[in-house]
């Protein structure tokens, strides 16, 4: 039996804004009167390391998504999509920003970064659907590269049991007013990538 309505795993690199996506989803769930829980990475791992956020909509159990159970994997960085792919259910969907952030192990020449198509093809064998986009470019197009995470939020918006209205009102609660219009454009551009 299912113990949550929708399980998301949002991954990326410390500083990319993973927590903001979950915060907006959480606030939207509260607006919709749904129970919600999530778990975040703070502290040491945030300094340039891999970060993972678990978000469970319509769930009143623990905040951790079990391996193999995520309905959605939202990756702000392509390598991190693959690193955390074991959380995806075979029926799940992966949304991937194709813009890599090279880890220090690569810039220092100690390791290689795999080609993006190789990452995407490995992912696609593992879940129902992979949607890839250059979310960083889309965010720049919307007016601010900082809004890359909001592009990804827009992309996932039609795949979760929450309304766009609730998501957008939550977005306006957390984004400074002067960046709101750019963020709304970023949201719309991300959403269009999935439709």
């Amino acid at each position, binding site marked *: 039996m299912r113990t949550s309505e929708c399980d998301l795993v949002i991954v990326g690199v410390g500083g990319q804004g993973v927590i903001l996506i979950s915060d907006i989803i959480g606030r939207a769930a509260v607006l919709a009167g749904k129970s919600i829980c999530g778990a975040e990475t703070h502290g040491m791992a945030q*300094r340039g390391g891999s970060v993972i956020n678990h978000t469970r909509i319509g769930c009143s159990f623990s905040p951790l998504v079990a*391996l193999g159970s995520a309905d959605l994997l939202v990756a702000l960085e392509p390598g991190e999509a693959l690193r955390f792919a074991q959380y995806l259910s075979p029926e799940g969907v992966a949304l991937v920003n194709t813009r890599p952030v090279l880890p*220090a192990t690569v810039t220092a020449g100690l390791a290689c970064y795999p080609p993006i198509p190789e990452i995407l093809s490995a992912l696609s064998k593992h879940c129902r659907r992979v949607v890839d986009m250059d979310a960083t470019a889309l965010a720049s197009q919307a007016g601010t590269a900082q809004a890359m995470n909001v592009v990804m939020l827009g992309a996932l918006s039609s795949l979760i049991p929450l309304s766009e209205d609730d998501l957008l009102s939550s977005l306006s609660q957390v984004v400074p007013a002067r960046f709101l219009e750019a963020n709304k454009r970023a949201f719309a551009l991300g959403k269009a990538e999935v439709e």
Partner: protein
Amino acid sequence: MVREYLLGNAAIARGLMEAGVGLVAGYPGTPSSEIIETIVDLKGDSKLHVEWSVNEKVALEVAAGASWAGKRAAATMKHVGLNVAADPFMTLAYLGVGAGLVVISADDPYCHSSQNEQDSRRYAQFAGIACLDPKNPAEGKEMAAYAFELSEKFNIPVMLRPTTRVSHSRSDVEVGDIRPPARAGHFLKDPARRVALPVHARPLHKELLAKQKEIEAELEGAPWNRLVLRGRTGVIASGIAGLYAQEAIAELDEDLSLLCLGTYPLPGRMMRRMLEHVSRVMVIEELEPVVEEQVKMLARTVNPGLEILGKEDCIPRHGELDLLTVRNAIARMMNRPERLAAKGPDARILPPRPPSLCPGCSHRATYYAMKKAFGKNAIFPSDIGCYTMAVNMGTVDTCLCMGASITLASGISHSDERASICCSLGDSTFLHGGMTGLLNAAYNKARITVAILDNSTTAMTGHQPHPGTGLTATGEPTVQVSLEALAKALGAGLVETVDPYHLDETVKSFERARDYPGLSVIIARQPCVIKARKGGQRLRPLRVNEECKGCKICIDFGCPAIEFEGERARINSLCTGCGVCAAICPASAIEEVAP
């Protein structure tokens, strides 16, 4: 009722404030730091006193003082901080409280951001005080408020023990009104309860022991202990493990009895009913077998034939639990198949991404200069902070606990070790636990160099202020303590301050310290690059020109802003303009980007 999507630590902070807390003191430490940060955000112009104390012992004593003066008070810390505060913690249980006193010790199973995974429930048991173990943010909030009542009713400090998955989880939490703290406090003189002379301590110890049964009886009725009697096989789970167990039982659709626990001492009557009802029980808890030991003792009288499963064969005693681990443990007990985690795609093609020092972080420059002056064969004891991540640079040979760099270095120097010794610790760590070690090193003639990596903040835990910053927790200006004056007063012979972005001068300074025949202190001062950038600092970035010979010396420096592409180095968009790589480059091939 209003609901908000709250971080566990924010929920705990709200719980304290809704209960009218009058003073909160703590030292930053993951996963506890956001409790005080939330209070700073919410306090407005309320009379509530909130502070970052210099360490956890200080924080707990400040909180105890407020409690004795009649204000509800709380001290916040991470689990290892409780080791620092253990001295007042143990004796406060004897002396008791004035107004309610809550000790929040946030545990970190799996060491997400810690040096060990000790279980604070053991400390509460050791001290003889009550411990509340929330399973989620909502319980964290309720328990934080209730802890004051319990503390006042039984005249003991009460521990609230969230874990990382409570402190750093979020959920929808009902929030109420924040209550202003009680009016002006007043310290009542009562030597028999405030002066821990042996003659006072002996009867107080007896009193503390006598209270235990009453505390247990009180907690029997707490809403966080829940018993559902069903089948003859049962599960007993504590804190967040209760949520994993509930979810696993729902998913497996098994008719199991379930006892979820959230308070210590454990509710004896409820435990007894459970043990009388079942013939087989699994105890599920993170880390230590605290509940399991009680179950085993109780079963000897209540149900000697009871089959008890737990840490020995089913549930790991290390790391954190999760749904799959708990589900599979219960499935095995019920002879059901385990659910294996689906094998993910092969991630071995991925490069590792360990946390690392930021681009432009001055610690990298300081360590580079230190190693250049001392040579790679010197011994480099280090400490707890962002700089511990420089372990790959070869300048972090030890990390034990807050401040131990200086004292370990002293011990090594007194052991006939011939190599030079240069230890390092951050500014906040020095003020927390390094000062006594420096004093001891001076007094006992340790011939070492101490580098204070002064980025003028407590960076790793989220940039909290400390006495060297001249600002309080609420951002008010205050005395700015001089590290130079402190180092001299504590007895260091040579004290020099350098800007690590000026690499040559920093190397020379370390060389003088190396050759100094006594205790030397180098203060390497450059604000944390994250904080400086947030404050608007923009230095001109650098670029690599045609002179690059591809020697990779800059690559070995390890800054994430420097990449190697084809035959040459390249500086990427992460560059903050610190300029240290330009000083390192032997071909003078790195220059500032023209304006």
